[in-house]
């Protein structure tokens, strides 16, 4: 059984798609990191219910115009890096795919961008009349990474079939500029035509709207007062969607409202106690307090595991860089840097560790050894502190959460070791 699993993993990581995903994401780590740092500062410092903005009472002493200016600047960085992340992905993915088959990588990358933009193009009357290009921006962002990968990979394959093999990776070989240009004509034509045909056939904006509404339904079900199994199941599904690169880039905006949440909070405020609230197993509170260690997938635990037992310098450096944003629940940096996105080795822990946390906490709450967590929490509160704040300072809960976190780190350890030993991920640069 174990051998089978190992072989399956071997096969997966050997597959050209998965290895291209891996290399692409690694190459894009700096952008994802900058985006997630900007997002972290925006969420924690320059938003009304941000962690730092409140605990240091920014509104009392910071001039409004500084607040507004920083907000605008960080929003811009966040939008351009994360909300257009798909463009970077499609370029790199097409480039690496073409390079894998010794085709012209740069032109393939640019073709990829054109193809993605065509797929995301919004065919509405208004733009036609005014002569403006309008896009379904969601398809270009970090929440549609999978789409960008599929298109980039597809374009790379086009080059494999339609262009000729040249030794582009060797800088000393002279490649005629005519050669490069002329060889790209057919792949570009086919890519453009098929992108348009595909986007007409598959109507991505509708597809995307379905996906979005499906995702928000998941969030709704998962965070309201539903049966525990339903909550856990939806969280599991969301974790899979996130792992596929179709989730939101941040989990910092976990819902902190709704009728059940209010009822819990009212009860706690009236009785000055977190015990016996009307909805002890409220999905949102449960997840936020006990499973949200650095966003979906308890990624803060992964980082700590790497920092403790990791042997490879590159992993250490990536982990150290993404530690701070992940601490404040902006985890896109680590998702791209390690990478976690579409990484077969990390699928199991990233999906099941948060679920396990929720189940343990729900059990402890049900048998009354742990109180519920009804109080409001600021956006970007460090993961291990959330439950403490959400119980109005219950030390026992804090200890329980830290124990849970240590358990998570321990559960991640074997996967970190496996990740480091994995032959496909060993050597960079030399492979192509």
């Amino acid at each position, binding site marked *: 059984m174990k051998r089978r699993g190992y072989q399956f993993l071997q096969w997966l990581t050997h597959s050209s798609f998965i290895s291209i995903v891996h290399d692409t994401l690694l190459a894009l780590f700096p952008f994802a990191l900058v985006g997630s740092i900007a997002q972290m500062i925006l969420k924690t410092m320059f938003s009304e219910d941000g*962690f730092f903005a*409140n605990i240091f009472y920014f509104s009392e002493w910071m001039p409004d115009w500084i607040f507004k200016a920083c907000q605008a600047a960080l929003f811009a960085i966040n939008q351009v890096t994360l909300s257009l992340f798909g463009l970077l992905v499609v370029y790199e993915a097409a480039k690496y795919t073409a390079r894998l088959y010794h085709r012209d990588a740069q032109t393939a990358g640019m073709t990829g961008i054109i193809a993605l933009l065509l797929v995301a193009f919004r065919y509405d009357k208004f733009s036609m009349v005014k002569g403006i290009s309008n896009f379904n921006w969601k398809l270009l962002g970090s929440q549609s990474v999978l789409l960008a990968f599929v298109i980039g990979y597809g374009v790379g394959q086009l080059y494999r079939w339609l262009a000729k093999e040249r030794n582009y990776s060797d800088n000393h070989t002279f490649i005629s500029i005519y050669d490069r240009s002329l060889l790209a004509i057919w792949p570009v034509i086919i890519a453009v035509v098929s992108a348009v045909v595909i986007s007409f056939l598959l109507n991505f904006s509708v597809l995307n709207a379905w996906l979005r509404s499906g995702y928000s339904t998941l969030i709704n079900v998962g965070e309201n007062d539903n049966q525990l199994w339903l909550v856990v199941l939806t969280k599991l599904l969301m974790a899979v969607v996130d792992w596929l690169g179709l989730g939101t880039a941040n989990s910092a905006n976990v819902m902190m409202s709704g009728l059940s949440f209010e009822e819990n909070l009212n009860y706690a405020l009236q009785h000055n106690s977190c015990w016996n609230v009307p909805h002890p197993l409220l999905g949102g509170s449960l997840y936020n307090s006990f499973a949200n260690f650095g966003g979906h997938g308890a990624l803060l635990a992964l980082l700590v595991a790497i*920092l403790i037992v990791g042997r490879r310098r590159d992993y250490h450096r990536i982990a150290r860089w993404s530690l701070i944003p992940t*601490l404040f629940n902006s985890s896109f940096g680590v998702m791209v840097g390690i990478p976690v996105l579409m990484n077969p080795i990390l699928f199991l822990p990233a999906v099941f560790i948060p679920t396990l946390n929720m189940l343990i906490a729900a059990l402890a709450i049900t048998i009354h050894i742990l109180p519920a967590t009804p109080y*409001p929490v*600021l956006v970007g509160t460090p993961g291990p502190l959330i439950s403490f*704040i959400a119980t109005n300072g219950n030390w026992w809960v804090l200890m329980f959460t830290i124990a849970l976190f240590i358990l998570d780190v321990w559960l991640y350890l074997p996967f970190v070791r496996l990740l480091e030993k994995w032959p496909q991920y060993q050597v960079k640069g030399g492979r192509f």
Partner: protein
Amino acid sequence: MPKLDELNPRKRSRLILILIILALILLAAPAFVWMRSSNAYLAQQRKPKMSPVIMVPGSSATENRFNQLVNLLNKDTDKKHSLMKIQVGNNDKLSTTGYIHRGDREPIIVIGFKNNHDGYDNIKKQARMLNIAFESLTKQYHFNNFKAFGHSNGGLVWTYWLEKYYSQYSDSITVKRLMTLGTPFNFAEKSIQSPTQMFLDLEKNKKKIPSSLSVISVAGTESYDSDGLVPEESVQAGKYIYQKQVKHYTTMTVTGDDAQHSDLPQNKEIVRIIEQYLLDNKSAPVPVKKGEQ
């Protein structure tokens, strides 16, 4: 430094981990303070709390204008309302006399203005001063609803305040009812055909008045068309402002003894109307808790 890293990356990582843990502990302290104060505030706000009646007198009157009215109200009921009077000075300084008894759910707060002259400009000024007093009340007493009462120009000040200032509070404080008494919505004009600037402005901004409000406008008449000072038509002009905007708009006309404009607050009939319509005379309905049905 890179040398340390090359030898053993874990050393440097451990250092950073320890620093992060220290930073987390340091951050926990202000977070703890924030949590306690914010939750205390939330708890304070949700306590079974008071719903004051805030009264504004008309022009030429002081914050003592309603002393007699409050006496009459307290004579009839076994629940005694405490009376607190605030005067807003010309420099926006507040001076308070009287106080709110502990446990009084329905205190009466009178807000008077040192500058109590008539005229539209002055009503705007008074509305601004009312807002200063109101804001300070919201900071001292945690109430999430109140009732407003305005005699004569006091009703204009309230209307102007509702249109211009109330939106600052509307998400946390509800104005349940407004009762105006002999309020000249069109000043001394007898007919709506000759509208004053103030009436036009109030009517123009009527959309800002909360639609959940109930308004009772009471007119007094000595003759058939006036309370001796304010034409009845001018009082009735209020319908152009409130009708079709608020939940209920009720008008009443009181005649007989003490129906003269300045006597209205002492009028027995009006005291009865206040008791019946403005005050929360029934005990507040207790919400049924889930799971206890």
